[in-house]
């Protein structure tokens, strides 16, 4: 052994340096690789919970309907009945959680209606769209249409 290592001890020291580096690397791995990595795939399992934990801004129509059955009745039979409440009234999870904390503002009729119903050649032909000048001039849409049941006046 002594004979084999003669004139090589500088190489042994270099090898030692490399091994020390490798050892340090392994220790750092044990310390810093997230404990829940690799369980379900090449990712941190906790990321699933992180993604699931964000706060909700839209309550969802079921929440609205549970407190406003009168509107549900009003919208029955109308094409607008298929639209979720928050599509027009905005994100209202805060209101659903605590009605007093946030009072939804009434959307500005003509502006909101035209977002969908303004005539555009790119909209499907079967969709009801109007040219405002021809259809109602300067009148607001609510003069003739109830937003919750627009088919009736």
């Amino acid at each position: 052994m002594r004979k084999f290592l003669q004139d090589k001890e500088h190489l042994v020291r270099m090898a030692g340096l490399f091994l020390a580096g490798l050892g340090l690397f392994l220790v750092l791995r044990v310390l810093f690789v997230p404990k829940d990595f690799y369980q379900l795939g090449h990712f941190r399992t906790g990321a699933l919970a992180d993604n699931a934990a964000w706060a909700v801004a839209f309550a969802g129509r079921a929440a609205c309907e549970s407190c406003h059955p009168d509107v549900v009745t009003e919208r029955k039979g109308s094409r607008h009945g298929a639209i979720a409440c928050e599509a027009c009234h905005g994100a209202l999870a805060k209101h659903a959680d605590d009605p007093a904390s946030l009072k939804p503002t009434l959307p500005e009729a003509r502006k909101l209606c035209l977002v969908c119903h303004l005539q555009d050649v790119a909209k499907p032909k079967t969709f009801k769209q109007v040219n405002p000048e021809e259809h109602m001039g300067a009148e607001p849409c609510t003069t003739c249409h109830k937003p919750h049941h627009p088919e009736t006046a």
Partner: protein
Amino acid sequence: MESMIHGVEGFMYPNEIELQWSILIVLYPYITGLVAGAFILASLERVFNVEEVKPTYRLALLTALAFLLVAPLPLQLHLGRPERAFEMFLTPHTTSAMAMFGFVYLWYLMAVLVLEIWLDYRKEIVLRARRSTGGMRQLYRAMALWSDNISERSLDIDDKLGRFITILGVPSAFLLHGYVGFIFGSIKANPWWSTPVMPVVFLFSAMVSGIALVMLVYMVACWMRGTAIDMRCLDTIARYLLYTFIIDFALEMLDLIHRIYEADESFKTLDFMVHSRLYFPHIIVQIVLGTILPIGLLGLVQLMRLTESQRKGFYATAGVLTLIGIFAMRWNVVIGGQLFSKSFLGYTTYKLDFATREGLLSATIILLLPFLILWVLVKLLPPWSHQEPAV
């Protein structure tokens, strides 16, 4: 961001308008390319016994080291969260070519370059340790790992091991730069990048740039030191530069001809891009000034009988043009690949700032830094000290 929209022509997916990879990502393949190329030149002597280029052996290795030390810098500066870069060592994703960066880099730096330089220089390091005093003595002793043994047998062992490391280093250099080509070449979403020849093209243009760099550094170093250039060495380097260049050019032309012939769905938009936004960097700088002209100059030297000073002029010009041309090649790949929309319906522009983290100033500093490091390395470990003092 608002202003970016004005640089858009046609339609781009909204998230595509801002370029993702900047000039720093152009620099990274350029720098690792120089490293790989310089190393291949050094290995010509050590492995392939082209002993004419021996005068540049050590200089090539030091150049490779200087540039390799700077290589991670553009990447770090570019990351959105640079403090998380070490995650590539903790949980490298084996399906991602980028994940091998940390390991390939460390392997090449320590197991190939540092080891080879150390083994080749060890005698001088020990001698300098014995000769110097104070801080320098401590430094040299540490570099020698506190060993004082420079017997014939130990140096012989060093030489054999060094040769083995160099042989190992050749495929390692190919891997160090080839994987960068694969990073681009494997992206099926981007037709400008996606091609199997990308790693090979990158590698050959890397060799071209590395050889040109060492050639120029050698010429400048001789001029600064007032020593004569070994023309046999220089002529040989220039010849290898020419050969490698021809292969590189052939590969790029193959890719181009293939694209034009097949003319798939991406061709029209790419063709238009090359003829408009990329015309100057691609046609003028990369192809004409950066490839055809240097090949022409180097080829002329082989065909005509020129004087020594004429050849030096041709080599210097060809070398500088080559370095600019290969930089343009990296630019055209990285930036070019982001100028067109993946909808093939539009183009955007690259706005290069000056004093921001990814601006021109950072890029310039990153390119100048290796020369500073090289200067320090050359002072510490002169590549041309053949006068050894008495032991």
